[in-house]
């Protein structure tokens, strides 16, 4: 198979090593370079500002400057967030960087002109700059890359930062040795201008969805950011993790310096050499580790593992310091901190922001990166003072504090890991609309006074609506209103008023209900009214029904007769006599009368005649009669009528009623329905109806039948089977035979990979219309197959999660698609993740994933073999498409294969093979 990945072999090898996909190299390179420049300028400026400050002021004045930095950070971030309301991220970064470049140029001029306060301003400003610039670069990276790309590429981008730190040191050294410290400011200004240009270039690659999501949110400010962070558990956990991380790191740094000082007591030169060597080696180790392992570790073990490494390493370092207090223990602790903090931990922490909406991310990230981290630094310093000066603890006390700090940090990370998955899930969740709930909420919001006003009015339609809303809220109308409505001129309003009386068993309406029986109302309503009368006054109701039985209204007499059958005794026998006469009355067999009789069957007590009447009614030719008979079958749960109801699924006039009746019969109907599904259904729609019935019933046998239907002949039926199974799983997960689903899933994945092999083989061929048709058919098959994979997954995992993930993976929204993939990676069990994700990843069309080779022994196929395989594949549609494109393939011996297809049972395959053979001859 030829790979569609562009570039030379060396370039491809490098991309594979660094896990860069085609089209990502430019953005990744720019971001890494941008971060390198940013960090280099920070390091160089820090050195320069320290040196310039100390050359003009006393070291004892440094804490005042640090305090000023802390105070100003809040002001600057507040202004920055306000600006973010007006400018999109890229513009915001460009604007602030140009502004900062101008400020550095001015400061350079001020220093050159001998303006003493310039050194103070520079010191303070560099303190802010040092936290603002890296945060900006990472914000841009978050907006340019999707979650999946971030997971692969953040390590590479982060390595730019590590390299930048080394570069910054060299710049400072170079400037220092040439007595040109002030020149660092001009270099920083130039770097900032270059950074603004890079931001402009990268802004064209920002994800469109992020900008869309940025609209119409709360305006950003320091207070709003704080509220936002406090309002979401996920953001609170990120804050807590950052906070604890900063504190533990400060404590470890102190321990390291203290132990080192003690180890090299009095030997200043040895101490300097040691620090130089230590940071040099750590920088190299950190860079190599970052480039080679961070991305791999994140993909292999996930974000959770990435977040755990630093706290656990520092915890071990703390324990080591407690047990030995030797230099080696300090080196281990500080080494782990320095190695992982700027590599794996940084990349993992940046990934935490990816599931957030772009606007939230911009607002929260600058707040957390700048304000919270500075605040945590301050708290850590205070804590050190407390431990050493107030509590006068020895160095081991600080080690205890490290260990004690790591415990809540690990716990926070544990929670954060789970919250990350939930946040990813929320980012791809599509809201469920529950119409009933919405209606209830709307109706509850309507004031009682307004309802009363409507009921008193003359608008019948509004009155009907008002009654419906009251029923929805199970509220009874005022008696005054009700009596007025019963006397009203609108039959529909009167009927609805009676429905309320009957449903809520409102006493005192016997007379009106008895009169209403005479109106032209449905059998069900009449039946309910009789029930209401019996409840109100049993004896009087029976007398009334006896009178109706021999009265002139034939429909009313029949209904009353059926009701009396349930009373038993002599009165029931008399009613039966009347009823038999009515049921066999052939004098005037109008459809209307037959329909009424058919409906009454559903109210008959159990008797030999009941099934006989039902059987007759279900064979009536009038849809109106059939509909009533079906309703009776449903009311009686007449399993004997199942086969007839299945037949009626083919009758468009009563299809829906037949389906509902089968669902009402429930489990006893499953055997008949499953049997019908095994035969060829009269239409795809009838087949779908059978599946729906099984999905609604959802017992063990129905589930087995649905699982079988996943191999149904048409795609629509297979899809329906998948949906129905999902409904079953939602109600009763234990009903699914997981082993069987696993086997089905594996089959689908294998078939999907096989189709991927075929697609890869034909996709680079000359694009003649017939070959393009074949390619399209294969792509469509592959997409269908992916859907089938998700149907199976939905039986093994929460189906809503799988449904939403499938939806976004199929969408054109890169960011949501990426979040969906990331969610699946965290959600699926390893054996599924390994096989399913390579099928879903973008840029996968031209490459056969390792899983296909390792798991299913698949190898890339040359075009000729792919065409032969298509022609022998047990998929008539792909066979036909293969035959269609075959004459243009130039494959040897294709004529023989086409000849063989002339006897194929599928008509389309036969026709296409014959046409293809003729074309070859021509």
């Amino acid at each position, binding site marked *: 198979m030829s790979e569609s990945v562009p570039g030379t072999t060396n370039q491809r090898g490098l991309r594979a090593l660094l896990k860069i996909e085609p089209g990502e190299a430019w953005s990744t390179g720019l971001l890494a370079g941008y971060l390198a420049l940013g960090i280099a300028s920070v390091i160089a400026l820090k050195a320069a500002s320290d040196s310039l400050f100390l050359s003009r002021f006393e070291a004892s004045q440094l804490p005042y400057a640090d305090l000023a930095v802390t105070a100003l950070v809040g002001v600057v971030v507040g202004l920055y967030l306000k600006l973010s309301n007006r400018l999109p991220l890229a513009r915001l970064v460009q604007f602030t960087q140009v502004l900062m470049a101008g400020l550095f140029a001015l400061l350079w001029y001020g220093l050159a002109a001998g303006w003493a306060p310039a050194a103070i301003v520079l010191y303070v400003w560099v303190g802010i700059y040092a936290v603002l610039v890296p945060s900006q670069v990472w914000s841009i990276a978050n907006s340019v890359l999707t979650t999946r790309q971030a997971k692969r590429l953040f390590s590479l981008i982060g390595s730019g930062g590590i390299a930048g730190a080394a570069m910054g040191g060299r710049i400072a050294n170079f400037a220092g040795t040439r007595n040109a410290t002030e020149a660092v400011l001009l270099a920083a200004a130039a770097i900032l201008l270059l950074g603004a240009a890079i931001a402009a270039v990268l802004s064209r690659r920002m994800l469109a969805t992020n900008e869309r999501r940025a609209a119409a949110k709360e305006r950003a400010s320091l207070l709003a950011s704080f509220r936002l962070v406090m309002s979401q558990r996920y953001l609170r956990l990120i804050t807590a993790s950052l906070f604890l991380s900063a504190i533990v790191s400060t404590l470890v740094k102190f321990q390291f310096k203290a132990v080192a000082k003690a180890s090299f007591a009095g030997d200043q030169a040895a101490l300097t050499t040691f620090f130089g060597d230590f940071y040099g080696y750590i920088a190299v180790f950190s860079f190599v580790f970052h480039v080679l392992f961070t991305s791999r570790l994140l993909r292999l073990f996930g974000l959770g593992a990435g977040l755990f490494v630093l706290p656990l390493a520092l915890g071990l370092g703390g324990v080591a310091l407690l047990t030995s207090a030797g230099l080696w223990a300090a080196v281990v602790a500080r080494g782990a901190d320095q190695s992982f903090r700027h590599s794996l931990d940084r990349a993992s922490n940046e990934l935490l922001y990816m599931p957030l909406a772009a606007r939230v991310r911009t607002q929260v990230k600058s707040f957390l990166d700048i304000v919270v981290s500075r605040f945590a630094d301050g708290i850590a310093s205070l804590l050190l003072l407390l431990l050493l000066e107030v509590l006068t603890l020895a160095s081991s006390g600080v080690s205890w504090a490290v260990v004690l700090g790591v415990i809540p940090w690990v716990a926070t990370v544990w929670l954060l890991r789970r919250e990350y998955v939930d946040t990813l899930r929320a980012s791809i969740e599509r809201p469920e609309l529950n119409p009933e709930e919405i209606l209830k909420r709307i109706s509850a919001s309507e004031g009682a006074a307004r309802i009363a006003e409507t009921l008193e009015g003359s608008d019948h339609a509004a009155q009907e609506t008002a009654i419906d809303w009251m029923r929805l809220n199970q509220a009874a109308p005022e008696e005054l209103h009700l009596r007025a409505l019963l006397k009203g001129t609108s039959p529909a309003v009167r009927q609805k008023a009676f429905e309320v009386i009957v449903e809520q068993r409102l006493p005192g309406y016997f007379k009106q209900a008895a009169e209403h029986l005479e109106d032209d109302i449905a059998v069900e309503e009449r039946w309910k009214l009789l029930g209401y009368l019996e409840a109100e006054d049993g004896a009087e109701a029976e007398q009334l029904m006896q009178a109706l039985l021999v009265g002139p209204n034939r429909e009313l007499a029949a209904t009353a007769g059926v009701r009396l059958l349930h009373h038993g005794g002599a009165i029931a026998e008399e009613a039966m006599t009347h009823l038999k006469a009515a049921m066999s009355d052939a004098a005037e067999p109008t459809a209307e009368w037959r329909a009424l009789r058919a409906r009454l069957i559903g109210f008959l007590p159990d008797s030999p005649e009941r099934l006989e009447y039902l059987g007759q009614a279900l064979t009536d030719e009038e849809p109106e009669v059939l509909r009533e008979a079906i309703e009776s079958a449903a009311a009686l749960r007449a399993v004997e009528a199942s086969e007839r109801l299945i037949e009626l699924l083919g009758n468009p006039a009563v299809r829906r009623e037949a389906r509902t009746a089968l669902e009402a019969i429930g489990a006893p109907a499953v055997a008949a329905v499953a049997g019908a599904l095994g035969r060829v259904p009269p239409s*795809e729609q009838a087949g779908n109806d059978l599946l729906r019935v099984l999905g609604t019933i959802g017992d063990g046998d129905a589930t087995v039948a649905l699982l079988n239907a996943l191999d149904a002949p048409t795609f*629509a039926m297979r899809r329906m089977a998948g949906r129905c199974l999902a409904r079953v799983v939602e109600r009763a997960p234990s009903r699914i035979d997981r082993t069987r689903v696993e086997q089905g899933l594996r089959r689908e994945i294998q078939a999907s990979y096989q189709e991927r092999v075929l697609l890869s083989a034909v996709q680079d061929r000359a694009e003649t219309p017939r070959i393009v048709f074949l390619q399209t058919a294969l792509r469509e098959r592959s997409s269908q197959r992916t859907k089938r994979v998700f149907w199976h997954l939905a039986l093994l995992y929460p189906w809503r999660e799988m449904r939403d993930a499938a939806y976004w993976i199929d969408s054109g929204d890169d960011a949501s698609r990426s979040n969906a993939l990331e969610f699946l990676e965290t959600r699926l069990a390893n054996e599924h993740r390994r096989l399913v994700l390579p099928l879903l990843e973008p840029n996968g069309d031209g490459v056969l994933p390792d899983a296909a080779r390792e798991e299913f022994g698949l190898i890339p196929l040359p075009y000729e073999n792919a065409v032969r395989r298509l022609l022998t594949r047990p998929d008539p549609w792909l066979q036909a498409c293969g035959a269609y494109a075959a004459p243009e393939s130039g494959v040897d011996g294709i004529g023989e294969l086409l000849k063989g297809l002339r006897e194929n049972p599928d008509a389309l395959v036969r026709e296409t093979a014959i*046409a293809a053979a003729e074309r070859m001859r021509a």
Partner: protein
Amino acid sequence: MDSLSTLDRALRLKKVELFQNLETETLALIASIAEQIDIAEGESLCDEGRPQLALFLVLEGKFDMLRGSARLFSIGVGETIGNWALFDDQPSLVSSTASEAATVLRIDREDFYDLLADNPEITRTMFQALFQRVRTLLTPGISNTPPVPATSTTRGGSL
């Protein structure tokens, strides 16, 4: 013109705007109810003022679209006549007459409805296509663009 195979017909139907969103397998189903017919010069496919009961895809030849005796425009190879006839009962606003010997694919409305009834999936996709078209016509900014996309060949669509 030689008789086209089902897949050849499906290939041509793929270019019809109404069917563009359908999968190839579904197109083959529609192709199976499409009838290839030869039309002599001067023969009419539909008459002004009378309902049109089929969609025609021109495979060969040309048709004049006339209102009264005035020629409005002509329809050629790859274009359709009566694009909405599959859904619309209204009388045709124009008549179409072959200006030279022609071959067309004819999709009869009743056959099409039978196909939809048996394959709800097609109905779903067709609804999407129709809705997309309506939205294109109604969305400000898009409505000024020609109703027929460049890839489409359905000048008879508004008839």
